[in-house]
């Protein structure tokens, strides 16, 4: 199996299960239409899959198997709150096994089949498996998050080094003064695409003495990715790109898939455990348009922390980059980031007993004017006596 990124063990089990496509809702709306239709049909069309299903689960993993067979992990959590991702102590006890479960739950369970050898082969159900596998690769990379207000775009990502001895992977690239990109998935592919983007931006600037509008760059990228889905001698890029930038019509954030699709977002997260960040962002996104730069960065940090699931957020494991009106794209240095983290972490420590709020505007009363971000902090804090958040 190809190791996708150095951060995660390449634990790539491709099993088909019934309905774990709910997390696809945000990322690829068009795919989910296809999947809904074929979810039932494919049982009959892919005989190999039935064979594999008969495999007996090993004794140690019986619980795992049962869980996998059940509905989407979101529903699972409602039934069984102790297995809730936000119950940290529980999780830490079953550390290794949880990681594996997490990976599998995040992944769309897919089987090896006779139609997935090359990208120019359609399956009878109308799917291009290679493209879908490429989208899987994105989910295996460590998380990248983007959010935008009317005037600023913030990109954040989790940077884990392979070992203490090594440096971490660069995941955020400056494309031009007004455009930056965060990647998740195969970083080598990401680097190549960043180079392409930089080259396009520079060429446009040379000819027109004017910054390349982000929207146009994103379309060019998408077309480039599409080419790789329609040539038998190529493979799709295994990287998802969160492109943030400014143009005439304001600040924009786009997500480019390996499939060649692109979508514009107010806020989005990709990579492993991005669902946690997406959940947080979903609750808060309506406020982002009018957010100040500082609030936006804070929201990005909190969303990043969501993906870490219990691990302490430190500036050494995350990277934040900002671009805005009058502010060229730049990556914030570690000290600045650490100070920002400290600023909102202190707030939480001072009010540990506050109830978490599932609503859009969490209880600001508990906090000392830290703003609406504080209430949401409570829900994510690893307090054993805090009730789990509704999702």
């Amino acid at each position, binding site marked *: 199996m190809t190791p996708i990124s150095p951060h995660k063990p390449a634990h790539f089990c491709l099993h088909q299960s019934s309905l774990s496509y709910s997390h696809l809702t945000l990322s690829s709306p068009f795919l989910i239409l296809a999947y809904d239709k074929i979810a039932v049909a494919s049982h009959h069309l892919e005989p190999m899959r039935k064979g594999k299903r008969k495999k007996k689960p090993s004794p140690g993993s019986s619980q795992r198997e049962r869980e996998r067979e059940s509905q989407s992990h979101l529903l699972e959590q409602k039934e069984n709150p102790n297995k809730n991702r936000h119950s940290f102590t529980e999780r830490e006890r079953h550390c290794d096994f949880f990681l594996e479960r997490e990976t599998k739950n995040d992944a769309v369970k897919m089987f090896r089949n006779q139609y997935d050898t090359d990208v120019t082969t359609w399956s009878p159900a109308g799917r291009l498996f290679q493209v879908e596998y490429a989208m899987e690769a994105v989910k295996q990379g460590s998380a990248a998050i983007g959010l935008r207000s009317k005037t600023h775009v913030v990109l954040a990502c989790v940077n884990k080094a392979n070992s203490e001895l090594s440096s971490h992977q660069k995941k955020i690239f400056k494309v031009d003064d007004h455009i930056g990109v965060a990647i998740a998935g195969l970083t080598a592919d990401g680097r190549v695409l960043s180079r392409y983007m930089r080259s396009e931006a520079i060429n446009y600037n040379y000819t*027109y*003495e*004017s910054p390349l*509008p982000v929207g*146009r760059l994103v*379309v060019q990228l998408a077309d480039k990715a599409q080419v790789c889905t329609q040539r038998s001698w190529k493979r799709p890029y295994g990287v998802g790109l969160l492109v943030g930038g400014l143009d*005439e019509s304001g600040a924009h954030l786009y997500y480019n898939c390996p499939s060649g699709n692109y979508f514009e977002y107010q806020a989005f997260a990709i990579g492993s455990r991005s669902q946690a960040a997406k959940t947080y962002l979903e609750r808060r996104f309506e406020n982002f348009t009018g957010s100040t730069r500082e609030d936006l960065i804070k929201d990005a940090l909190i969303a990043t922390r969501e993906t870490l699931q219990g691990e302490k957020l430190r500036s050494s494991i995350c990277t934040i980059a900002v671009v805005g009106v009058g502010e060229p794209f730049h990556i914030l240095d570690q000290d600045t980031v650490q100070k920002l983290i400290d600023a909102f972490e202190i707030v939480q420590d001072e009010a540990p007993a506050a109830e978490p709020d599932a609503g859009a505007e969490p209880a600001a009363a508990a906090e000392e004017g830290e703003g609406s971000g504080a209430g949401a902090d409570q829900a994510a804090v690893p307090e054993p006596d805090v009730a789990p958040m509704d999702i």
Partner: protein
Amino acid sequence: MESTQSKPGPLCNPEGSQRTLYPYVTGTSVVALKYKDGILMAADMGGSYGSTLRYKSVERMKPIGKHSLLGASGEISDFQELLRYLDELVLYDNMWDDGNSLGPKEVHNYLTRVMYNRRNKFNPLWNSLVLGGVKNGQKYLGMVSMIGVNFEDNHVATGFGNHLARPILRDEWHENLTFEEAVKLLEKCMRVLLYRDRSAVNKLQIAKITEEGVTISQPYSLKTFWGFSAFENPTLGAEGSW
């Protein structure tokens, strides 16, 4: 059997050359200035064939996209070629349909690149271009020569206009001219050119570009005065001369 020596390339053989050597049908000066609401540009409608004032209804100013106005002096056919390039550029820009549009600065730079590249190939577009426009309240006025020299200024002119019109503009131009003042100033420049430039014709257009759009006036003539006493009896002091 072809000799091993290569044929002289197109650059070395003037008779068989495909590159521009001399201009044939040319337009004379274009003068433009920034005023309160935008840019005003004036050019006459003459196309000279050498020293003959052959064509008298040549439109030498054209709108480009939503925000720009291009005026050209020099070879008319090269101007028409440029208009085709710009047409394609604007078309692609419109096809994006994404809320972004090419402003005068972008068009000016694109033209500079085109002119400079052609000059490097020893096949210039024999024009001096004036590009003016307004976008998002910002006024822009620039010039590109046939060798790719480009600059931006508050008032520009090509050809003879540089020598005859710009001194007037340097003295009398100021920030925030009203439309009437600007037209008067331009007409003053054009009148001097009419008197003194042998390839000028007395049929001109004035074009205006503001945030709202482009307006190119109908052709009209300037009033001239020839009733100077010195012209009354020119051969008075020297019988037989003219």
